[in-house]
């Protein structure tokens, strides 16, 4: 759940009274844009991406305009622009028009939870406006602070002192930066980054920090984020239909975390436990359709619902249904296996049978009863299967599932379909 850009960032900053640049959204009229240019001298035109998309400046995706004509030309260029960062391609959905802020200094500021200090930690430099990793470390302050007392003015003052920040920016930053802790801590954020904060001269010549770009990440397990009333659609681009359906079942009693690895994969692997998830997805790679963690002793009804959603989206394309986990500590194997098996049976009833080989690897409470219930279902459905206990290495079981997948890809699927008296697939 990430948010970038000033379109919403400016609103969030206003919650805590932090100054921001003037921002107009995609719906701005030509008159409004013209007025903004007149007021600020020039404006920046930036594409709006849902979720967290960075490095726009480097990619040439920030336009500058000194008149309406230029602004409209940049709007046309950037409104639906595509941006690729790593493997992820995002498409813009509009632009913002942001008034330029004259400034002598640009400041980088962020708050996040550091695993080095095991405390909330600020990162601060007066050499902002560039990627923080590129700066000499002597100009960058990383300072942890006590969350119970919060981010206090003295923490900022000391940090700026340490990195030799110019005197004229210390007082305004000491006055304004602590406000950001309120936004960070009370609205469920895990990262808050302002880069740049432009130090612009105010009416009395005193510098005023103005946030000119915004990035934050919310903790999806923290309901405080909902206090901000942000539209859910802001984050919806991050989730497929499948993930959205599963997420509706997301509670702390039994995990239901999913991530689509390869929508064209052929191994459907409901995986139990974060550890198993790491291992299984690593070995399966792109053969896997989804990466999941369904551990945490999910109740029968939830497990059945989760399995039902998985099957309705992906069972038809799967060669292997691979139910895998280590030796469970508290997950009731009988309940979870019975739930998955019942969902499988239900799926066959609703959508007809599909040729799939079932591979299971698991240990834990009520193991044999669970295996028996699952095996009975597969026998009744006429599906071939192999069930491994915890005395087979989980990684070997994953390799076995891949071997089955290979066999299925090399004609086994057709053989199984014929054996199950199914029509040949198109």
């Amino acid at each position, binding site marked *: 759940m990430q948010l970038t850009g000033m379109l919403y960032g400016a609103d969030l900053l206003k919650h805590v009274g932090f100054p921001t640049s003037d921002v107009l959204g995609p719906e701005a009229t030509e008159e409004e844009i013209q007025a903004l240019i007149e007021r600020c001298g020039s404006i920046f035109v930036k594409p709006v991406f849902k979720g967290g998309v960075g490095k726009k400046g480097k990619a040439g995706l920030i336009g500058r305009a000194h008149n309406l004509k230029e602004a409209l030309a940049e709007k046309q260029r950037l409104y639906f622009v595509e941006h690729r960062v790593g493997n992820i391609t995002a498409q813009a959905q509009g632009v913002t028009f942001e008034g330029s802020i004259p400034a002598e200094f640009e400041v980088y500021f962020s708050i996040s939870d550091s695993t080095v200090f095991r405390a909330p930690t600020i990162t601060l430099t007066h050499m902002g406006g560039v990627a923080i990793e590129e700066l000499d470390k002597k100009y960058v302050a990383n300072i942890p602070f006590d969350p119970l007392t919060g981010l206090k003015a003295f923490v900022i003052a000391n940090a700026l002192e340490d990195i030799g920040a110019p005197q004229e920016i210390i007082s305004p930053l000491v006055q304004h930066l602590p406000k950001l802790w309120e936004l960070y801590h009370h609205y469920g954020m895990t990262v808050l980054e302002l880069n740049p904060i432009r130090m612009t001269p105010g009416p009395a010549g005193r510098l005023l920090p103005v946030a000119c770009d915004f990035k934050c990440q919310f903790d999806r397990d923290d309901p405080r984020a909902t206090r901000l009333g942000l539209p859910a659609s802001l984050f919806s681009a991050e989730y497929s239909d499948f993930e959205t359906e599963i997420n509706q079942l997301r509670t702390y009693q039994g995990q239901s975390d999913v991530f689509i690895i390869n929508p064209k994969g052929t191994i459907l692997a409901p995986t139990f436990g974060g550890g198993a998830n790491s291992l299984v997805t690593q070995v399966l790679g792109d053969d896997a359709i989804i990466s999941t963690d369904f551990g945490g*002793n999910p109740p029968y009804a939830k497990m059945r619902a989760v399995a039902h959603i998985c099957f309705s989206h992906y069972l038809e394309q799967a060669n292997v249904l691979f139910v895998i986990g280590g030796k469970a500590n508290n997950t009731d194997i009988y309940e979870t296996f019975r739930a998955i098996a019942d969902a499988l049976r239900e799926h066959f009833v609703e959508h007809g049978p599909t040729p799939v080989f079932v591979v299971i690897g698991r240990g834990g409470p009520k193991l044999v009863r669970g295996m028996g219930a699952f095996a009975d279902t597969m026998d009744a459905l006429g599906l071939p299967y192999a069930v491994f206990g915890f005395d087979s*290495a989980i990684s070997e079981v994953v390799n076995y599932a891949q071997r089955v997948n290979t066999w299925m890809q090399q004609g086994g699927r057709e053989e199984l379909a014929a054996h199950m008296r199914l029509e040949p697939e198109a």
Partner: protein
Amino acid sequence: MNKKGVAGFPYFVGIESLAQVATTDDTICVLNILGTESRQVTPVSHAYSGGNIVFGTSPGHKGEVLVTKAGSIPVFDSVREGLDAGHHFNTGVVYLPPSGVRDGVAELIRVNPELAKVVILTEKVSIHDAREIRAFAQSNGIDVFGGNCLGVADSWNQVRIGGALGGDHPEESLIKGSVAIYSNSGNFTTTIAQYLATGGWGTTTLISSGKDVYIHFAADEFANALANDDRSRAAVMYIEPGGYYEQNLNLTKPVVACVVGRWKSKLTRAVGHAGAMGGAGDNAESKERWLMEAFGVDAIFTPENPVASAKGAVVINIAHIPLALNKVAKLNGFAPDFAPTGNLALKPWLGNNQGLDLPPEVDLPIARAIAPYDLQIARLRQQIGAVIPRQSMRDSSGATRMDPATQITSVHGHSVLDLARLPFEVNMALALVHETIPEKDRALLHIAVAAQANLVGDPALAAADAAREAGTAPNLVMAAAACMVGPTRVERTLKAAERLIDLFGASGLRDPYDDSFDLGQIPVDDETRALFVGTDPESAAHARAMLAAVDASGSRSVFLAFVESLDGQVDQDGVQAALATTLAWGPLMRKRISRLTAATLPWYLRLYGVSIGSTFSAPRHRQGSLADIPEAELLERTTLAELAFLALTGKKPTDREARSLEMLMGLLVSNGPGAISAQGAKGAVSADGPQTPERVQINKAMVGFLTHTGFAHGGNGFEGMAFLLDRFAAVDVGDPTDPDHGLDLRAMAMAYAKDYKKQKALAKEVGASGPPALPGVHHPVFKGKAVNYDPREQFVASTMAERGEYNIFHDYFRELVQALFDVGASRYVFCINVDGMIAALLLALLWPDYQAGRITEHELETAAFTVFLLGRMMGAAAEIDDHLNRGRNMDTRTPASECKFVT
């Protein structure tokens, strides 16, 4: 900070040695002790740890207790109440929901000055709360484990605190030894302990650290405590990406580090472990590098490339941990704690290829599971047949399914179109054993059913004849006969079948025709023998005839051989049980059917036979012959389709006629669970109570099906025939299967279509609803296109074309639908529906006898109804058996709220 911690840390750490993590001196308070998860695992922890939990809290449950094998744990509303009651504890365990965790930890810290440790099991604690918990604990000098962890345990002390390391049998995995475990994964903490045991390594302290963003007792703390623990000679650390906890570790004892999660760099959000999201600097590769540098190795340890130093090794596959540990230990000069207890090779405990020919790399032999799972699996294997969960089966079926788009029904996955091409015997079996049976079984099913058809001297015949004489329709004639086949009449043969399942179930017999099977291993006592042999000479004679037919067919099964091997005269019940068990055995062993289905199969077979038999009038049943067919010929050389044809027409059919009848009956097997006939059968089962299956009267269920057929459902097949009789009354058809009939069907159809159009127009003028709908054409689903087809009709037509068969009535229907369109009586070309197809086929079968005056129009109607009943009888059997296996008592009733009162 109020307390002084271990020296050398920039923050508070209280635990100096792993020996202090979970000790026998620790006393515990569990928050939300009666919560769903705690209720399951806390009793095991308490008992395993010798009763270390002093009390728990659960607001609103003061005065209750959590019962455990080590005594009951008292429950209070709050921590203060427990302390006020005189309890003391040094460790808090938190099972609260995520939103309550922070407050729970605050409560523990604030009200209990003796608190030293907190273990948080809850997952999805917000980072906001985690950072505050960290701060409370730090400022008050408390060690915290978790959240999102599975607690800590000590194999030497036999103590586990919080969570469920080792599952419900901790002693299985927590074996005393010399290796400490620190793991980001709770599940892998136990799994690694299990893997270590296979390599001969036991454990000291096991820490499930959790993998949230905040890990309070992390790798640094572990490394220090490991160094100070004399019991631990080495450690295994399981590490996932995310966080800098493992950077610059000061490890002074040998460690095998397993770093998993290279792939996770592709994730854009966490799955499972909230903190397992690595950035550029703290991804899996970085962590592998940190640890390789710490150990002074330049590669990952694999069995092929076993790179390790005395300081340790890095693996990326947890299965390689024991091997790497062996190598590291060897470099340090110490040996495993005990002899290896096994290996981690692939060992499937259960499996079924379902008869597929798998390549060797996939086709693994089933292995014996480790104790005590081997015994549990052995018990599981003793359970014969499928176990089917019960549910409400109102309007539902696990046997039949109609596709609303094509209107084609399937029975146990086989389309009725396929059934239309199969012999009567195969379909009868399919309904109950869920598979198409092989040739050998087909012969046995024939014998089992045909042997029951001759009802001479049987009250079923008297009942059927009485019903017939009373003028009832053929469904009630069959129903009267079925009423006489009650539980008492089949009691002995069902018991015999049960006994065969008991005796052979444990023998490992898979193939019922296995010639090499040694019957000597089957114990036979007098009670068993009495189920198969008797003194009734008539029954024995039937049994001999049946066995002779079996020999003639070459289908002698193990069960039949067993029955024959018994001392004494085998009787009909015994042979019938052996025949039925043979048919059921394969599907039963493959768990395609339940034991209940196999054990009740003789009852269905008898009902099949009696139903066919009841269609013959009483005089045709004689001692030793039915319809003048001697018993031997009936059992050996007369198919059931031939017998049915004989019942309908009084004569043996040609091959083509028998095939046509089989096609008709196959098409009629089922129309899904919504059909009235199916509802009748299901209602009858539901009313007897399938949850007590031994009380369900299968003959009554068959009567339920029969009474839910009638002149509108089943008997209406005659409407199409009557329509055709009218159309062809004035012409000489000759042989209706001869395409060279010389009739101008187009002209006949046009004439009727014009007349029909006139009737419609007239009806419209007078405001009437119009002439009655034409039977045999049009369908509410297959309509609206320029030319419409019912796929079932198309299937039959194509099958006939394949066989080079012709049907004049079908041809007439084709002309008629076109003519109706041509004259403007229909807006598009109607389809010929499946009823029209059936009427055409059936009329062609009966035409010669009807033309010759050997059967009347009434008998024609009876015959049409009977064909329906014989076909649908099989579908009904499938529904009855399905409902008996799956249904609940009275599950077909309609709730009062859904019922309507109509005035």
